[in-house]
């Protein structure tokens, strides 16, 4: 008998559509036989059913107004080949989770959630633009992202 036997069953009991997004209703069951490690209060609170929201990009539902505005105001945004040079050289990215390459990719897919918080980490130093092999005007992209947030996400 091992000292700690942890059995975790994650059983998808049922899934149901909420709006147009599929959400999973999941059930967590933890069994611990180690006498030293009894079920904690926290685990008791989280025991049972939780709803996980869909993390899938649903392109059909996403609002492309934001993206279309960016493309129009800074057309070089279309040239990105996702090489990651910008993010590798990014001053902000060395100290925070800021990833301009990923933000760009999310925006062109119409994913705008959480962008405001992320884009504020940029210090507009412009190193990203210096290294971009495709000549994307990244500083202006970031300014236009700020403008479009003002415009569409008030």
């Amino acid at each position, binding site marked *: 008998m091992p000292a700690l036997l942890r059995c975790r069953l994650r059983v998808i009991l049922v899934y149901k559509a909420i709006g147009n997004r599929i959400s999973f209703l999941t059930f967590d069951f933890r069994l611990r036989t180690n006498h030293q490690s009894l079920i904690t209060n926290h685990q008791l609170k989280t025991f049972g059913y939780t709803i996980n929201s869909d*993390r*899938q*990009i*649903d*392109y*059909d539902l996403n609002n492309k107004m934001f993206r279309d505005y960016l*493309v129009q105001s800074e*057309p*070089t945004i*279309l*040239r*990105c080949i*996702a090489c990651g040079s910008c993010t590798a050289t990014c001053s902000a990215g060395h100290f925070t989770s800021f990833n301009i*390459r*990923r933000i760009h*990719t*999310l925006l*062109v*897919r119409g*994913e705008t959630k959480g962008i405001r918080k992320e884009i504020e980490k940029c210090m507009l130093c412009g190193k990203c633009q210096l290294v971009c092999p*495709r000549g994307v005007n990244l500083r202006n992209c970031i300014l236009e992202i700020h403008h479009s947030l003002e415009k569409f996400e008030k």
Partner: protein
Amino acid sequence: MRKKVIIIGGGVAGMEAAGQLSAQNMEVILLEKQSILGGHLLNWDRLFPTRRDSAEVLDYLKKGIGSDINVQLDAEITNVKKEGSEFRVILKDGRTFNSEALLLANGFELFDARKKEEYGFGIYENVISSAELEEFFRKNKHPDLFAGIRSKRVGIVHCVGSRDEKVGNLYCSRLCCVTGVKQAIEIKELLPDAEIFSFYMDLRMFDRHFEEMYYEAQQKWGIHFIRGRLSEASENPDQTILVKVEDTLTGLPLKMTVDLLILLVGFIPRPETRGIASQLNLNIGSDGFLSPEDVHTGANSSNVPGVFLCGTLKGPGSIENTIADARAAALQIACYLSV
């Protein structure tokens, strides 16, 4: 006496080699399985990277086929033998030809997309292959008859039948990437309001001007490139196609509806080539294409003296590559026969 060469395959490689060998005063017998010369070129509408009409290249190749070339159409080969230093090719209908050298230019076949059942080719009306789109361009010059409506959104799937152990093909077909970009631009020219998405694993824009086409597709035409390999395509009740993919650059699963899904089918070796190779004891590579004597320095000769190889029976290649390869093979045959 003029030396005799039999060429098997009357596509780009065979036609070019025939013209070149004939110009060097050799007696050429050109065997073609179909009832017309031209091979795959007959099915292509416009060619990358210039998007010129494929008929122009065909006209060039036809000019090389003079009256002194013995063209044999509907030539289905049953037996190829080497007797001493002579070759004997016997056709199904009994026609027999002899020569001192043999040039194999059998070419390739396109991957049958039905083998990737999860993409729904042959099941859903609005899932088509890149070859079908070319055929459609040739005949109708408009892609939306497939959807029965104006296609608002078109998906293009790269690497169908290539780089895929599940269908037994580990190799890259090399030219589907640029074909996909070319076709995306062509659709956009016809349907300027359409949104076009390319689903790719890697974009291999290896040759001259290919990267420029990719740049043009992004900047001028606004074509979207999503890095991720389609997991499945399924049909909605209105016959549009729902595609599922991981958008690997965001690390999130993605789904979208498209009106038309185009599968970029890759190159596969011809099954007939395998038969000929076994009759002549030719070396076949692990990918099923024929192996040259030396991959760097003897790309046109085989392991059997007098048997030469050119074109896409050695693996995926463009028209430019194939024509250059056919000329190289012709030169090598001329050297071999003059000794």
